[in-house]
Each structure stands twice: as C-alpha cells, then as structure tokens.
C-alpha cells in the first residue's frame, strides 16, 4: 500500500506573522507587512522596500550560545521547528531517532552573516587578502550552509536522512517535496521539513537591483507588492520561515494526531531556458502541475484554490497565468487564485514553505486569503485572483506553485484529510 504523508505540525515566522495565529490573521485581513527597509540604511539602493519579520531571538527562547553561532536564517528555522514539534504533539523521545529526518530549504542561506563577516575580514571591503586573525570560529558554518539542517536535526536528535535542498526560490516547495518522497519510500516515518531565508542584506538587495527584479515603489512601501496588478513593477524582498512535522498517515492516525492536510502530489521541472528569464507560455510549470495532479490521482477540476507564486514581476504573473490555462484548461477561469506575497513579500527559498502553510491553513479554516493591492488587473492576467478581500469557501484540494532562478518550476497538491478515505 502506498504510504501517505500528512502535515501534523506547523511553525511559521513571517513579516507580521510570528506564529500560526498571527500569520493567519494577517493573511485573512488583507493587511500588508511591507515597509521601508530598517535592517540597514537602504538609501543608496534602487529598491528600498522589504517585508521584515519582527524577530527577537531572546524572546524566542534561543540561548546566548545559539544566538552567537547561528545565522539569522538558522535561528528562524530552529524556532519554527520547535513550534512545529510542539504543535504536532509528537513525543520525539519515544521515537526511533533513525526514523526521523530533516529536509530544509534555503536559497541564500547565511547571506546575512556572510556579509557581516566579510565587512570585518576585509576591513569594509578595502582588503582582498583577508585577515584570518579576526576570523569568527563560525565562518565555516556560513560558507557551507548545511549547518542549517544540522541545527534543526539537533532539536529532536534526528538520526535519519538530513539534507538541505537549495533550489533557489522553489527551495521551500522542493524541500517539502523531498521529505514527502523520503516518507513515501520508507526512508523515514517523520520528517521535519520546511525552509528559511533572511536575505534582507545589502548584497542581496544590490543583486536584485542590478536586474531590476525588485520593486522601485519606494514612496509607497505598504502597497509595493502588487501581484497581477497592472501597476506592479517587481517583487518585494522578504524574510521568513516555515517548518512542518510531516508524518506517515497511518502513524498520525494511530496516535490521534491533528492533521492539517495531506500532501498528495508534488512535481518539479526545469525550463532550461534562462537563469532568470521565463518564456511566456508557462509550458514547464504546466507540466509540473499536470504531473503533481497525476501523482495525486485527481483531475484539474478538483482544484478548489490555487496558492500562486504571484511574485509581482510582469514576466512571472503572465508566465504563471499561462501555466494555469495550459494545465487546467477552462477550470483555470473558475479556480480562485491568490498571492500571499502581496502581504508578506517574497522570502526567496522560504516562501514556498510559507505558502504551503497558508494552503494548509486555508483548508483548515475554509478561507481563501486575498491578493492585497490588486485594484486593476494586468489585461494579460485575466483570471480570478481574489482581490483585496478574503473569501470563505470550503476547500477540499489546493494547488500551490513556485518558480525560481535556475528555471525551477514546482507544484504541490494539498488536500483536506476529511476527504481522505482509507
């Protein structure tokens, strides 16, 4: 019998959303957490807007030693993992550690700490030959970011498969998809899976400035993330994390666990076209969607809601609109579609997992979060993007998608476990 995988615990830290409750309140209110950058002085940069999390590591219960050694993205991941574990009610001490694994996604990993260390080692950029005398003992942890899943593994003493999936902006779907495969094939019974990125640091802001991928709407930061709107002009950089306890379904059922949703399908494809560019036809994303539907053994018409990538770049919004039409046909015009990036921004590798959390909560609560700031659709984006206001609707099956640099296109299907029959 095929092993099925369900979400039994969720932890999130997002801009305006410290914890599941605050996160969901933000998403359903249609408020936005995008602001002028405060983590450093953004005035020399083209894009000066970001969605920052109000994250206090001391308040979050991290020890001084943990705070010293962990990069900000690792701190987010560990805090979310602890939340997800608590939420799942799973007693890890009673569990064979060899059957517990970790799959963590991140696109730019320790970028924040790398930049801080760089400034010390190079004397503010003046020295090409760096001074090893002022070297942090943790520099290697920032060079090679697989310390991130290791730190998460240590929270529960996991001894099963532990890995980092770093597929750029689809990392957060792909890390969870990777974990689902491991549970299905029997390599683990429980996986801590999710993603974290904290990229609001000068080098990352500058590299997106260079290709004008981020918004220049600096005079109106609260309304700067405008997916599918005619006036949108780039994405809003963000930070955040989401972690899940994923569990084999029978295992969860036996212990009477609360199940948010089943992850019933996942697929990823590459466009093999351009490292940052997208073709307008959406061919590869459509293929990923169709393959994920096949894996879930459902027809496209079963999709009740699409949690979009919706980054708010012109090329993305048109690309994914084409992908929905291509993969779902006429049903693309009926299925409500929304982008939570309009509220929490685009946290690169983390957002895929944050969107999985939003999808699971949408199923749990029967509410579709809206696309904020969508006042006038791009004429080439002619579907139902749930503008401005949340919609109450019973959701059996949700599709969430991601698209990223390197050409990655990923799709995942979540479904209400009440509709799962054994």
């Amino acid at each position, binding site marked *: 019998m095929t092993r099925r995988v369900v979400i039994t615990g969720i932890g999130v830290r997002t801009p305006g959303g410290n914890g599941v409750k605050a996160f969901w309140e933000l998403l359903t209110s249609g408020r936005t957490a995008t602001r002028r950058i405060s983590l450093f002085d953004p005035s020399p940069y083209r894009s000066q807007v970001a969605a920052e999390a109000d994250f206090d590591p001391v308040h979050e219960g991290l020890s001084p030693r943990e705070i010293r050694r962990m990069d900000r993205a690792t701190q987010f991941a560990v805090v979310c993992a602890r939340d997800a574990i608590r939420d799942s009610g799973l007693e890890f001490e009673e569990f064979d550690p060899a059957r517990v694994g970790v799959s963590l996604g991140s696109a730019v990993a320790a970028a924040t700490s790398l930049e801080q260390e760089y400034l010390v080692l190079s004397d503010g950029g003046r020295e090409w*030959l760096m001074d090893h005398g002022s070297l942090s*003992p943790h520099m290697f942890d920032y060079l090679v970011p697989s*310390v991130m899943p290791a730190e998460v593994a240590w929270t529960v003493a996991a001894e099963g498969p*532990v*890995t980092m999936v770093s597929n750029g902006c689809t990392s957060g779907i792909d890390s969870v998809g990777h974990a689902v495969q491991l549970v299905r094939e029997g390599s683990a019974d429980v996986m801590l899976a999710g993603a974290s990125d904290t990229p609001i640091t000068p080098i990352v802001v500058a590299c997106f400035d*260079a290709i004008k991928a981020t918004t220049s709407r600096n005079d109106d930061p609260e309304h700067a993330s405008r997916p599918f709107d005619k006036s949108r002009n780039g994405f809003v950089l963000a930070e955040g994390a989401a972690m899940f306890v994923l569990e084999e379904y029978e295992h969860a059922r036996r212990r009477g666990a609360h199940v948010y949703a089943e992850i019933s399908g996942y697929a990823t494809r*590459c466009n*093999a076209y351009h490292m940052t560019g997208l073709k307008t036809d959406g061919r590869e994303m459509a293929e990923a969607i169709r393959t994920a539907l096949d894996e879930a053994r459902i027809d496209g018409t079963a999709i009740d809601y699409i949690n979009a990538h919706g980054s708010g770049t012109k090329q993305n919004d048109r690309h994914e609109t084409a992908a929905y039409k291509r993969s779902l046909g006429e049903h693309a015009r009926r299925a409500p579609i929304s982008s939570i990036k309009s509220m929490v921004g685009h946290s690169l590798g983390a957002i895929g997992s944050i969107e999985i959390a939003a999808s699971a909560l949408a199923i749990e609560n029967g509410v579709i979060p809206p696309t904020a700031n969508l006042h006038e659709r791009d004429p080439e984006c002619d579907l139902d993007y749930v503008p401005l206001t949340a919609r109450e609707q019973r959701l059996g099956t949700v599709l969430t998608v991601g698209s990223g*640099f390197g050409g990655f296109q990923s799709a995942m299907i979540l479904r209400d476990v009440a509709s799962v029959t054994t």
Partner: protein
Amino acid sequence: MNETADMRTYVTGIGLLAPNGLGLERYWEATLEGRTGIDTLSRFDVSRYPVRLAGEIDGFDAAEHLPSRLLPQTDVSTRYALVAADWALADAKIDQDAYTDYEMGVVTSNASGGFEFTHREFDKLWTKGPETVSVYESFAWFYAVNTGQISIRHKLRGPSSALVAEQAGGLDAIGHARRTIKRGTPMVVTGGVDSALDPWGWVSQISSGRLSTATDPHRAYLPFDTHARGYVPGEGGAMLVLEAAHAARARTAPRIHGEIAGYATTFDPPAGSTRPPGLRRAAELALADAGVRPADVDVVFADACGVPELDRAEAQAISAVFGERGVPVTAPKALTGRLYSGGGPVDVATALLSIRDGVIPPTGGTTEVPEDYGIDLVRAVPRSGPVSTALVLARGRWGFNAAVVVRAVPEETA
C-alpha cells in the same frame, strides 16, 4: 513506464576534473602513479596564512571549453561543473532523440556556491557602490547554479534539484538522482563540484579548524596515518550520467561503467549523546539496499578526513561492518585534497575505474596506520585483483553520513 522494466541505475558517462588530472584518464593515471595535485596555493599570496597547501586545478582554460558568453556569468566552480557535465554527456553518447526533455534531469550538490565570484561582487558593492554589482550576481552565487546552468546548456527539463551536505552532499546527489530514476525519469546528470580558493573562501576554510598546517605537499594530508594532522582542501569534482538500465539498453548505450546499486544516508546523534555515530549504519543500510553482504565488497573508498579522531571513528565503523582487516580500504583523495561536494562523485568514478581495471589505487603518502585502527589500508602502490563491488563513504561536517554501493555490470547482462 513498464512495471517490469529493469529499474537498476547504470552509470553510462563520467566527466571529472581533479587537481591531479583534468579528465578521467589523466586523473586515473596520476592516481595509480601516486602523483599528487597538492601544492602551495597559487591564486594569491598565501605566505601570511597558517595554511598554504591546496589541491588546485592547473592548466584549465575555461575559454577552450565553454562559449564566451558563459564566462562573465559563471564562477570557476560552475565552469568546472559545466565542463564535467559536457564530458560526461559526451562519454555517454546520448543521441538527441533518445529522450524527451522531461525525461532528463539534473541533481547536483554544492557546498559553497559561486564563492570567488561573489567575493568580487561584495568588493564592488562595498568599495564602488551598489550600481556596480554584476547583473549575474543573483544567480552566479546560489547553490542551485550548477543544476540550473547544466539544465539550460543541455535542455534537460526533468525533475532536478541541488543538495547541500558539506562533503557528504555529492553522494546524496547521486542517491537522489537514483531515486529520481526509480520514480520514472530515465536519465539524470548528477554529481558535485566545488571551489572556494579565493582569499575569503580560504580563510573561511581555515576557520573549520580541520586544515593541515604542514608545508610538505606529500606529508600534509595523511588519512589514517599516525602523523595525520588535518586535511588539505581542494577544488574540482565529477559529474556522472545515470540511466535506468532498461533505457540504457534500449538506446544501446556504448559503455556501462557500472551500477549504483545501493545508497543510504544517516545523521549523527548530537554532541554528548551516548548513541553511536551514524556512519556504520549508513554503510549497512546502503549494503542492504544493494542486497550485498559485507563479504561481497572488494574495496571501501573511505571518507578519510585526516583528522585523527575522525579517522579512528571511521576505522571503527569499517571494522564493525567488515571485521578487522576484513576489506581493503583506500583514500585516493589524499592526492587531490578534500573536494567537498566533489569528493563523493570523484570516489564513485574512481571505484568504477577500479572495477574496470581490476586495481585498487593507494592512499597518497600515508605510511604508518595505527595498529588499533584495524583496517587494511592500501598504501604506497596499487593493489591488483578483481574488483566487482565497492563501498564509497562520505561524511559531512556537523554529522552527515552517506554511503553508495557501486557494482560491476557484467557485459552480457548490460
């Protein structure tokens, strides 16, 4: 996909760049002859640093191998990865119509991304201003760069991914590529390549506390030796073409290098735990996955960190699985330095060559192995004899363990 199809995973192409040899055969010749690729790092003046030796690739001119438009947008590590993939695909001789684009994927591992490239961009940002940062920085740095670039160059549109697990990641990539094949994608390009030999990458590696401070290139990295005192870092790696056996047979693949017969990964318990480290379990799970008994294994390619307590732990794991001196153990990486994500794939390629030529290469300059390690380490000269099954081990800092079983494919069954 045919339910009864032969879903074994074959290696049908190899591309390799190592500090002691550019290209598979040159590397193999150097490895058997004991020629080291370790020398004083020449990229910049290392005289002020406590560590000066590296396994550096010499004589590589990217412009000879890659189109000029790719050069400004790629770090040196990505150039190596692209060339290794080119060579692996050329070796596999896959016709353009053998597969559809979605039937071909890419799974790579990476430890430090396009690090030298990004170091230059950090310098531009902080000395000349944000407007001078390269339009390529957003994708030349991140850990998925090699997967993306290889996918684009060869129009491979199937399931693809990039994994990070320090030195264990390269075997994880191969294991995940095999999983991807078993799930129905018949061809996957996989492997790992790393390079972080710019001054920032260099001091970052020094901060690991595991690098050898020795100055004699022949005595600096001595895995399992009584004089072991750390490792020498290197650059390079290998890419492999993996194919489902039924698909390789259907297209009459010209060469079957061997089979990826088993794979497993485990993670060590946290520091202070009384539970044993996970390497032994990874080895046992990989053997079980392959359906191979320890007695069937002809050689173990060790992780061979060169740090005494880690060498001892690995020797214990090997003895626990195979019995004391129960199997020949080797570490040809003593001649290349540790290549991070490139290390495992190079060892897998080396294991396939051992199978082909019936010879186990030696472990660099290691001479004296402590008696109580209880391992039969192949030293000084190659050891001849038939090799049909090899176990490749890798460990990544912080607790990652991975193991791959490589097996010969007799010609008549290919």
